């Protein structure tokens, strides 16, 4: 499983878990956690893009 698949799997698991919750606070917690996972996934893509961009910086060739 590559890195992004991990993030997508995690988001799905937490989403499913949140839907099973009857207690309001547990549901709220997991819905908020899902947003942090989405933020992680977005940040991961951005940082990987930055690594690529910097490694291919022609001014450094």
């Amino acid at each position: 499983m590559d890195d992004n698949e991990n993030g997508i799997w995690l988001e799905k698991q937490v989403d499913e878990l949140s839907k099973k919750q009857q207690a309001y606070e547990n549901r709220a917690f997991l819905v908020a956690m899902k947003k942090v996972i989405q933020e992680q996934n977005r940040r991961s893509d951005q940082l990987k893009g930055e690594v690529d961009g910097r490694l291919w910086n022609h001014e450094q060739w």
Partner: protein
Amino acid sequence: MKTLVIVSHPEINNSQTQQFLMQGAKLQDVTWHHVEELAKIDVNEEQALLRDNDRIIFQFPLYWYAAPEGLKHWEDQVLTRNFVYGDGDDNLGEKEFGIVVSTGMPLKEFRRGGSENITIDEIMAPYRAIANRAKMQILPTFTISQFGYFSDQEQMQLLIDYQRYLTQEYPDTLSSRQKWFEREFTDRFKNFNDTSCEDCETILNTFIQRREDLEQLKSTIGLIKQGEDE
């Protein structure tokens, strides 16, 4: 870390916002302290309570650009000059200070050109001045505007944002958020509905792994940047 929430509201039982927040504040290491309920303010007791906590929060609805009189009365009694700075001891130094304020007007009106034409930060200046005098670390103000108009989704988000404001490490970065959710997930997953929750441990470990991966990427970028400077 221990948090003390000093709440001021003259009719707290009729306040939907405060009742909602009170449920949210039922956390380990959080003390809810409603000043209007105190029959008498025992200065020594109140000061001991302040000393005993690491993060002090003032929480109130905004009445004419200030807190209700109950909080001012409490301040005038408890925050004696000697206690705050006069006796040479920084009784409150190194502690954190935050404000949770609710407003009846939309947040967008609290800015230059808005119908209030004043910012929340400007209104909160006297509280910040006290915290500053006491050498406390000031946290950004947590504003709740027009709670009555919140959707279910927004209320849920508010509950968790509020809990993070009370107990999460400052400043509020992705890294602090991740660590807060890691800690809380560990504590809370015993109470999740799906009691077997076979995946909970894997979920937690993957979540931690994701944070570590991000840290690794950041450190890689740091190294590349260093190389670019050379």
